[in-house]
C-alpha cells in the first residue's frame, strides 16, 4: 500500500459563523472521506462534528455532505491526493455545527 496525502478544507462552526479549517491527512489507497474525518477527530481535532452511524456500509445514509459542491456520502467518496477537497454541510438544511445539519425528521425532534 502506498501512503498519500489529502488536503481537506472543512466548513466549521455553528449556523452564525462562517469559517474553514484546513487539514492535511495521510491515507492509504482506497481510503474514504469518512476515514479522513474520523482520523482528524482522533489525531487533530476531536471537536469536529459529523454525522455517521454505520461506518462505511452505506446503509444508514447519515454521512451525506457536500464534497467540492456535490452532494455525496463521505463513506463512499474516495480521498484524492494533491488538490484540496472542500467539505461542507448538506445544502438546504439548517447547519447545527461543522458538517452536521438538521436532517432529523421533524417528528423525531424534542
Amino acid at each position, binding site marked *: 500500500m502506498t501512503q498519500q496525502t489529502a488536503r481537506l478544507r472543512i466548513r466549521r462552526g455553528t449556523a452564525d459563523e462562517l469559517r474553514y479549517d484546513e487539514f492535511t491527512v495521510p491515507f492509504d489507497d482506497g481510503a474514504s472521506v469518512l476515514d479522513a474525518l474520523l482520523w482528524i477527530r482522533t489525531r487533530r481535532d476531536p471537536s469536529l462534528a459529523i454525522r455517521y452511524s*454505520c461506518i462505511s456500509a*452505506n446503509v444508514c445514509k447519515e454521512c451525506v455532505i457536500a464534497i467540492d459542491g456535490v452532494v455525496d456520502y463521505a463513506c463512499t467518496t474516495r480521498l484524492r491526493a494533491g488538490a484540496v477537497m472542500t467539505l461542507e454541510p448538506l445544502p438546504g438544511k439548517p447547519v447545527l455545527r461543522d458538517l452536521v445539519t438538521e436532517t432529523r425528521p421533524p417528528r423525531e425532534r424534542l
Partner: protein
Amino acid sequence: MTHLETDILIVGAGGAGMYAAIAASRAGATRVLLADKSLVGRGGATVMAQMTVAAALGEECPDDWTAHFDDTLASGRGLCDEALAAVLCQEAPARIREMAEWRVGWARRADGRIAQVAAPGHSRPRCCYVDFLNTGPAVAATLRRQIARIDAIRRVSNLTVTDIVTDCGAAVGAVALDGAAGEPVTIAANAVIVATGGLTRIFRRNSASANMGGDGYALALAAGADLVDMEFVQFFPIGHLAPRLVGMDPIMWDPFRYKLGGRLLDGNGREFLADYGSDETSGYTTPRDIATYAIHKEVAAGRGSPHGGVYLSFAHVKRAALEAAFGPVIERLARNGIDLVRMPVEVAPIAHYQMGGIAVDEGMASRVPGLYAAGEATGGANGANRLSGNAIPEALVFGERAGRFAAAYAATHRPGWDRRLGAEALARIRSLADGRQGDIGAAVLLDELRELMWREVGPFRTAAGLGRALFRLGEMRAALPELAIAPGRVCNATLADWFDLRASLLAAEAVTRAALARTESRGAHQREDFPDSDPAWASRQHVSMRSDGMILVGSSP
C-alpha cells in the same frame, strides 16, 4: 429543562427497540418513547444485516422449532440459557411471517414459498433473506413504516440516555443528553427497555455501527442489573480485509458463501479447514468459532495472506452464476476494483456480535423491577457461540416480548417522578457541557481502547494479556474526570465522546474480567493458556457492579 413522561421508555431504535415499541402499543401502552442516540431505525446492527434470518418455517423441507432449538444449543457449546433459546426458536416463525405481512420482501422460490438456505450449524435449509444483501435495510425500513403509523409511539433521534434512574431499587425513568442542543433531559417512565445492541465497536476490527459501544450494558450495570456470558464475543471469521472496500459491510462475504460456497485458502493457495476437522466438501458448513480459530492458527504459523488474513476465492464460480446470485452487488464490487472471477479477496476475523448481555427471564425482565432488555443487549440465548442467522430473530422475538411484558408491568406500576431523582446525573451533564480544560480528550482514549481490546481481549486470550488490559482500563476509568471537553453545547462531539468512553470502559471491563475468570476455552472464548474445554466450566458467569463502581464476576446462581 425538558421533562418527558411516558409509560415505557425504549432505549435504542434498531430492530429490537422498534419491535418492542410496536408490541408495547399493541399491549395497550398509550405512551411509548423510542429514543436513539443516532437516527431512529438507521443506527445499530439490524440495518447492517446482510442476509440470514433463521426460523423453522419449513418452506424448503419439513422443519420444527425443536430442530432449530437443538442446533442453537449445539452451537452454544453447552452454555445456552435453554428457556431463552426455546422462546427464540419457538416464536421466530411467527415474527418472520408477521414481517412478511408487513411486506418486508423475503426472497421467494419459484413456487411462491419463502426461500430458505442452509447456513453453518443448521441441520436443514432454514435461513430466509431479502436480496441482494438487503435483509437488514429491508427489515429496518419495514419496522420504521410500522412505528410511523402508531400514534402512541413518540420517536426521538439524537437523544442519548446517560443514566437509568432507579427509586427504591426499581427503574422509574432516565436522564438523557439531547445531543443537538447539548442540554439534559429527564424522562419519567413506568418501565424501561434497553435495546441498545452490542459492544463490538470496542474492538479495532469490527463490523459495528458507531453506536454499538456497549451503552446498554453500562446502563444496566449501573442500575443494578446483572450481565451474563460477557466473555463470549463472536469474531466473525471472514470479515473483509483487503483490498480496501467502501460502501459495503465487511461481513458481506457470508452470503456469498451461502449461495456459492467459495474456498478459504492460505497464503500459498492451499485449502486448510480440513486440517481443523472441518470438511467443506458438502458446502459452507464450518461454524464461526472453528473458522476463526483455524484462520488465526494459519496466520500465526506464517501461512497468512499479505495483509495478515487468508484468501477467500470464488475463482471456480462462473461469471453468469455470480451475476445471477448477486446482480447489482457485482457492480459495486467492480467499483471497488474487485473481480471475483479473476482474484481472491483477503479476509480475517472481525468482532461481530456479543453473545453475552443483560441477564433476563423469558419475559425479558432483568433483576431490577421495571427494567427490561431486548435483542443483542440481552445475554444467554446463544451461549458460547451464536448460530448463524439467530441475531435478527432474536431482535424481533425478544423485542416483541420485551414490549408486551413491559407494557403489562407499566399498566400496574406508576411510580411517578420526584424532581430529586437523577440529580447527580443531571449535574454531571450540566458540568461537562460547560467544557473543560485537559491534556487529552475521550476520542484519543476511545481509539486506544479499541487497539487494547483487539490486542489483549480479542479472539485469543491469555491471563497476562487480560491482566494488562484490566490495568490500562482501570487507568482510563480513573482519567475520566480529567478529560478535555470543548466548549459549545450544540452538537458537541467531545461531550458525546465522553459518554461513549464512560460506557465502553464499563462494557470492556465486564468482558475482560469474565474472560480472565473463565480458565478454559469454549466457543468464542479461546484462552491460549487454557486451550481445552473443561466440563467443570459448563456454567454461566454473572457480572455485576457494586455501589462503589467495582465490577464483580460470579458463577451463575
